[in-house]
């Protein structure tokens, strides 16, 4: 034994021998086990990171989709009943059960009329019979010729000319509107789901524009008690596999008409 040890010592540290085959094999086996363990951990972490990243993105899209749609529904029906908007026929907005409704729902889309921004208010009273609206300073730039507007939600009109902060309308006003009355932009918005994307078409010649990706389904149902109350269900699915699906349900009721 003493001799064998001495020999080994000599072999190992004298630089004459090297590791024995068995030692080498054991070392390779152990290091490969460790390498595989670390690789597995790293691979799991990488796929978890990717899945979480795309899930977060999908949920962000889902939230945007629900909030945009809900916001538009809340503002639906602002202003008087119109069936022509942006110079186009918005279609049959009449419904046997409820009369005029500011939206039209299909399996994959919803048309909403009246949702719009409030870009201006009157700087002077607009009397019945006039066709000119005087806006607050700087607000004339928010309008272009041909746009449908609503004054305080009481009556609608079409802009025929913009001169500084004065709007000329295509027809005379039927009502008198006091100072500070809000002037709204009327809109016809069509939200539709297709190809995993929620698109918004404002019928302004630009066609449908993508609003949120990862959106795979949309379902809108009117309440049986109040047709003005809509329940919006939107489903988001991640683009990467394995897919993650989240469904959000929101209820909104339109404040107008």
């Amino acid at each position, binding site marked *: 034994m003493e001799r064998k*040890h001495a020999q*080994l*010592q000599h072999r*190992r*540290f004298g630089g004459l021998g090297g590791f024995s085959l068995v030692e080498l094999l054991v070392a390779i086996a152990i290091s490969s086990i*460790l390498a595989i*363990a*670390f690789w597995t*951990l790293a691979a*799991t*972490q990488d796929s*978890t990171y990717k899945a*979480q990243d795309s*899930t*977060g993105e999908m*949920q962000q899209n*889902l*939230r945007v989709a*629900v909030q945009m749609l809900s916001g538009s529904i809340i503002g639906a029906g602002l202003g008087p009943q119109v069936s022509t908007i942006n110079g186009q026929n918005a279609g049959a907005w009449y419904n046997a059960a409820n009369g005029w409704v500011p939206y039209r729902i299909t399996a994959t889309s919803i048309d909403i009329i009246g949702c719009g921004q409030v870009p201006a208010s009157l700087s002077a009273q607009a009397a019945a019979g006039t066709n000119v609206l005087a806006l607050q300073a700087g607000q004339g730039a928010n309008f272009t010729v041909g746009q449908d507007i609503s004054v305080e939600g009481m009556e609608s009109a079409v802009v025929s000319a913009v001169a500084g902060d004065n709007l000329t309308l295509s027809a005379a006003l039927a009502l008198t509107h006091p100072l500070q009355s809000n002037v709204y932009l009327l809109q016809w918005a069509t939200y539709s789901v297709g190809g995993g994307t929620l698109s918004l078409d404002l019928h302004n010649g630009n066609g449908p524009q993508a609003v949120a990706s990862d959106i795979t389904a949309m379902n809108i149902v009117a*309440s049986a*008690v*109040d047709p*003005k*109350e809509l*329940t919006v269900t939107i489903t988001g699915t991640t683009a990467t596999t394995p897919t993650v699906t*989240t*469904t*959000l*349900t*929101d*209820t*909104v*009721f339109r404040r107008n008409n």
Partner: protein
Amino acid sequence: MHRLDNHKGFTLLEILVALVLFAVGALMLAQMQLFSLKGATFGREAMIATISAQAQMETFRDPVVSPFATTILDLPTTEATGTVVNIAAVPNMTMTYWRSDPPGGTAPMRFVTINVQVTWKGNTLNFSTVVSEV
């Protein structure tokens, strides 16, 4: 030369200590992953809780579905007696709602604060809104 002369291998104890150290390190890495997964799950559930509470409060603002004089004033007035609703999208998620007592203002211009509390897996989110009579 003393060290080079040492031709003994590792003892079993040394190997075990090394293994334990390695395992602790690996476990901590795995734990980190678990932690971030939990965070992501909470984010998803909080989003569902928020939208559900918003939707519930919205129905109280609709005077046709929830007339003030009946539905709103009939709501429970304490958290303990609040109406409990299950939110199906997340297991064990429940929503409780009640109104402040007494209502502010005088008829027909009264208003109440509606409180909505969503609880699930030890998490609680509180929401409130004011609903007026007209």
